């Protein structure tokens, strides 16, 4: 998502000046996406340049509110109507890291998996704690943002579990130096068991 569409969505509620926009943005994302005031003004001036918002006269306190234009509303409606493409998201560093760990000599892949799982679990605990503390009806938008992060973290842990299971079943083509000796049974399950206990 772009900050630009976030600001347009907020202005659709009514005119606002910079600091109000920043506060409203952080409120609706539960401060999970902190925004500095510089980003707000830079984005506003680009939106103004593109004709999507227009500045209104300054208030007595010297604050200049902005309002959304018809072109801005159309742009916002298009954004809501268009699914977010997965290819627009950054590449998953973790997946690449694990793939490389598997093929890099001297890396204990299981430790990499476990370290990541612990870190993700901690994040999940933190997110759950935030959720537990926000059960007022007006907290719903924030709870949904938190839920999204909770589900993503959960998916990551599940994937890591899957990686670990696959590692147990994975028979390297060249046995590592610490591999079990002649006791390793041909039966895959027995082998996995030995491997897991190593």
């Amino acid at each position, binding site marked *: 998502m772009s900050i630009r569409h976030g600001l347009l969505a907020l202005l659709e509620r009514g005119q606002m000046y910079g600091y109000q926009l920043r506060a409203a943005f952080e409120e609706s994302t539960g401060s999970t996406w902190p925004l500095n005031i510089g980003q707000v003004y830079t984005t506003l001036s680009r939106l103004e340049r593109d004709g999507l918002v227009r500045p209104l006269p300054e208030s007595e306190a010297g604050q200049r509110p902005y309002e959304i234009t018809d072109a801005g509303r159309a742009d916002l409606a298009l954004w809501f109507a268009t699914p977010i493409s997965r290819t627009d998201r950054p590449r998953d560093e973790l997946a690449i890291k694990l793939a490389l760990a598997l093929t890099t000599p001297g890396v204990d892949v299981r430790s990499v998996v476990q370290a990541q*799982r612990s870190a993700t*679990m901690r994040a999940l605990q933190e997110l*759950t704690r935030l959720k537990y503390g926000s059960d007022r009806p007006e907290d719903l938008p924030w709870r949904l943002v938190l839920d999204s992060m909770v589900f993503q973290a959960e998916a990551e842990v599940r994937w890591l579990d899957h990686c670990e299971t696959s590692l147990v079943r994975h028979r390297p083509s060249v046995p590592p130096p610490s591999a079990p000796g002649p006791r390793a049974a041909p039966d895959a399950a027995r082998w996995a068991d030995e491997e897991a206990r190593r």
Partner: protein
Amino acid sequence: MSGSDDAVLELRAVQRTHGAGPAAVHALRGVSLVVRPGELVAVMGPSGSGKSTLLALAGGLDRPTDGEVLIEGQPLGALDRRGLAQLRRRRIGYIFQQLNLLGSLSAVENVALPLELDGTGGRRARSLAMAALTEVGLPALGDRFPDQLSGGQQQRVAIARALVGERRLVLADEPTGALDSQTGEAVLHLLRRRIDAGAAGVLVTHEARHAGWADRVVFLRDGVLVDTTAPLGSVEQLLSGSDR
């Protein structure tokens, strides 16, 4: 011998082996764990890692091959069958995926049953059971029978039964079972609330989202604790103390 500090549950180098000789299965190999009041510990790990064995030992439903299990400082090994059964009824609440509600008893009778078995008078047991049903949000459904309740409501009755009276230790094995995500979340919310009120809990789960409700998550692999986590803040300290 008394347990460590104010621990509600303590496992000391607990081992559990099924069978003997080459066919022996080492379900747990020296697990130590302390759970204090107000603390919910989640146990995660792949199938066969020893999660359910750990819970059975913690609840006095099974005895360790070696090591010791203490509940509120009381070593379970020192109790005879009767003493153990009494401690289980008074001190421990169990929430299993299989609810084990008795179909011929109403919701409130199901919840009151462990108290009555333990000698609490009928009227008092019923009033404590109603309080527990109210706590889980079912104050009006006490007279219904299990087959007149939805899956989520039945699960709440099972939780009320686990929480009724003075239970200090709540043991849960995949307690959200086949419930939908909202109902499952409500169940964990209830569990969390009781823990926050001073109980101690152990939650066995393979769902990371559920383990997120815990103060600490421990990972079991092949009967050994391999890691432990807490929410950000005290993490470094906990990790440096783990046995990795």
